[in-house]
């Protein structure tokens, strides 16, 4: 058992260590607050990509969390044999769709009809990736809430919907949050869907109807460029991204721990 954990931790340390060693020297205040500079110049940063990523992922979460958790609630709390079964099955199938296919789907669905790239289409692409993850983990979480709790609540005369919102969800909140965090971190790190949706931007943009820069896409561009300088920026940006993921995870849990203590 200890061996198993050690292996996971080993890989984490190996990867994090590699990223840090290669990119740490590049992380400074400028890196976090400036926009990218063109090839051949040193300095510059990833600020527009950080803001862009936040924008796209927050909107995606606003779309994906209600849909994923809502659907999971429906499947588990309102059993309706074939239908719920099908939805869960489809969610499992959807987890296997490559991110590039999702990007192309969002492209056909939104970019073409609207005539241009936008952060919004990127959010839709991310949401499509997030919903199956959230649905499956939420469903598992809800399934594990003992029925005795539900029955007790119903027996007290509390309507079903309040039972769900007031009893079932809080009890399963920690597992729900795990699923949400997994989904959000997945979205934060995907570059391929952004190629044909949010498109990327070398400049500042917070207008959701226009193209926007995102961190994974920036990492991809820098990592596949010819300059050692760019590679370092890629590693540095990766480290920043990892810290953001960790921060999100810690923050959401702290927030929820506060809530469930009520």
């Amino acid at each position, binding site marked *: 058992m200890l061996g198993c954990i050690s292996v996971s931790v080993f890989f984490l340390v190996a990867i994090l260590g590699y990223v840090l060693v290669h990119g740490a020297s590049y992380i400074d205040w400028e890196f976090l607050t400036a926009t990218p500079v063109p*090839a051949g*110049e040193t300095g510059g940063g990833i600020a527009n990509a950080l803001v862009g990523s936040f924008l796209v992922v927050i909107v995606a979460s606003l779309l994906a969390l209600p849909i994923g958790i809502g659907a999971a609630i429906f499947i588990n709390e309102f059993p309706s044999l074939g239908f719920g079964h099908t939805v869960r099955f489809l969610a499992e199938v959807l987890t296997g769709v490559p991110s590039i296919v999702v990007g192309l789907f969002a492209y056909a669905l939104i970019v073409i009809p609207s*005539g*241009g790239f936008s952060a919004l289409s990127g959010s839709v692409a991310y949401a499509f990736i997030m919903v199956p993850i959230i649905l499956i983990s939420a469903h598992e979480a809800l399934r594990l809430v003992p029925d005795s709790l539900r029955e007790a609540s119903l027996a007290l005369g509390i309507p079903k919907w309040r039972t769900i919102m007031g009893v079932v969800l809080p009890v399963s909140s920690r597992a729900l949050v795990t699923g949400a965090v997994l989904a959000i971190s997945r979205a934060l790190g995907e570059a391929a869907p952004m190629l044909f949706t949010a498109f990327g931007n*070398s400049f500042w943009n917070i207008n959701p109807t226009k193209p926007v820069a995102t961190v994974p896409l920036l990492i991809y561009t820098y990592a596949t460029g*010819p*300059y050692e300088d760019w590679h370092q920026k890629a590693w540095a940006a990766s480290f920043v991204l990892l810290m953001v993921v960790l921060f999100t995870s810690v923050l959401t849990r702290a927030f929820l721990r506060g809530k469930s203590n009520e």
Partner: protein
Amino acid sequence: MKFKNVAAAVMLTALSTVPSQVFAGCPTKGVKELTGAGATFPYPLYSKMFSEYDKACGVKVNYQSIGSGGGIRQISEMTVDFGASDGIMDDKQKAAAKGGAILHIPTVSGATAVIFNLPNVQTSQLKITPDILADIYLKKINNWNDKRIAAANAAVKLPDLAIAVVHRSDGSGTTFIFTDYLSKVSSDWKEKVGSSTSVNWPGDVGGKGNEGVANSVKQIPGAIGYVEVAYAKQNKIPWAQLQNKAKKFLDPSLDGAAAAADITNLPDNMEVSITDSSNPNAYPISGFTWILAYENQTDPAKADAVAQLVNWMVTDGQKFAAPLEYAPLKGAAVKKAQALVKKIKSYGALVLK
């Protein structure tokens, strides 16, 4: 409409006679943003050019490198203002472009280096002739101590080591140029494999992007591969000297690429491959990269902006090319490029005079 055109013409004439204060080449109709997409090869250069353009004109040109095919697709769908490609659009693609005829305006040219991994052999010490290169990639020559390689390399001791052929696993303009060259110098290659952005390689390992190929060659003993010169230089990987049409052995270089483009019979539409060029100083695996813009546009302001931008790129913008390892356009190529930009019209009226 007519009054507007006259007014615009008057304004342009007036502006063009104003010296120094007004930067020649900025959009004149108030456009502040442009979007472009396409080839990854010129991306570093374009990022520099557009940054300078922003400083000079306050116009933000957002260019993303999604690949030449992506650039062709997006300009066909008109989701971007201009595209960029290392390969020439074929007839089917041209027919599919929603906005009509597309101009291919070359901006720079570049060289593709053939890199290798051999113990005790330094850069430029290995000499490769066209037929040897083709046969290595056809898997007809499988070991570095083959007689034919030795014959071309009397001064170098070649080991008994299997050749590991590395190619691009993703489609790319670099592959297009490389296979185009092999098709020209080897009828066997042309028949068995052909040229395209992605082909059915006879072997061995596919690397993702120039970076992937460079890394694979660096790591695998006995490997051979092809990458853009910048990657070979930056990663310090040894490259081979290739024999050109005039039987000279040359290193990949900016001068070699520029010489390849400096030939007498360039077509007006500049849709030409310059591999295996006839210029005696030409590096054999070189190619243009083009900006794709619609000839007949419907938005006068955008048309003006695109025309001004591209015109600037092929003239004043060229000074940023060499420091970043790109070969600027020279002589006839510049003139033809500018002539192409001048063809851009909006509602039938020429944009640039």
